[in-house]
């Protein structure tokens, strides 16, 4: 998940999420960066409104519960 966390960090700090910035953050955390995963992340995030994605409750819950007990 570290790639997504990097993106979320940048997002919540209101910084641009670019290959560069994601790589920087991962680097600084001591992560051995896999360029293709960074590229894939950026490309996946392209056109996604993060705020909206997080809020759209529809998604996450779908899977979750059951586990309840």
């Amino acid at each position: 998940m570290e790639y997504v966390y990097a993106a979320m960090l940048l997002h919540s700090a209101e910084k641009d999420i670019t290959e560069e910035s994601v790589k920087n953050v991962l680097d600084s955390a001591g992560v051995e960066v896999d360029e293709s995963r960074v590229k894939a992340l950026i490309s996946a995030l392209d056109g996604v409104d993060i705020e909206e994605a997080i809020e759209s409750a529809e998604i996450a819950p779908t899977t979750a519960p059951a586990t309840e007990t």
Partner: protein
Amino acid sequence: MTENVAEWKKNEVSEISSKIRESDVIGIVDIEGIPARQLQEMRANLRGKADLKVSRNTLLRIALNEAGVDEEFKKYIKDQAALLFSDINSFELNRIIEENKTRAPASAGDIAPSDIEVEEGPTQLQPGPVLGDLQKAGIPAEIDGGDVVIKENKVVKEEGEEIDALLADMLSKLGIEPIEVGLELKATQEDGVIFEPEALEIDEEEYRDKVVRAYQDTLKLSIEASYPTEETIGKLIQKAKTDSVKLGYEAEVLEPDILKDIISDAKKKAGSLASSLGSDFETNENE
């Protein structure tokens, strides 16, 4: 004041007024109608929390005067008044007084302190003339299988109505004790402030709700401001994880943690499409 004023009165007044000065909280209560024996019990129940002083109203007034208590306070002395001396705050004092109230059977001429209701169900009474008396008193009684039973719930006296002798007798036969016996608080005086009992009623539920709300709102602020505390760090971690998973899911970021959900979701979607395509595709594959 004349020289005829009995010595005991002077002593009584000075004793009362010094108790007034020594106490944080003074209460005025009405003890009218409380039998001596029960008054004794109440005194015992209050021991350690409040002292009850019964005296003549005039003496109580003089004592309050001498102790320099606000004029206003004296107006609560009427009927058969007594003073309470306490170091417990007025709210708690009021609560203790309420808690010490007991129930007693009604006597002819008593006023119903609240609606008096009989409840549906069996009674301990033996069939006999009592049945007619119950009915005469307005209690819906009947014989059922050799027992006297009450047919239905019924309010037999409304609050404020006088209870007649027959009903009083019947209620006591049924074991219903409608009369509240206890000190009736008229007012307290504390730090120069006079409280009437209505002001002293505390809704603990309401405070409990406030406690809960204060806690929840504080948690919310801590989380929203992402200011971690012992109580909220776990929730902040969860929020970070949850939001990240949501984003990953929504944006289809292909990371193992998220991919599992995406696959599971893809399967679900394909499954539901299959089922809307008919049994042919529902039963599916491999053949």
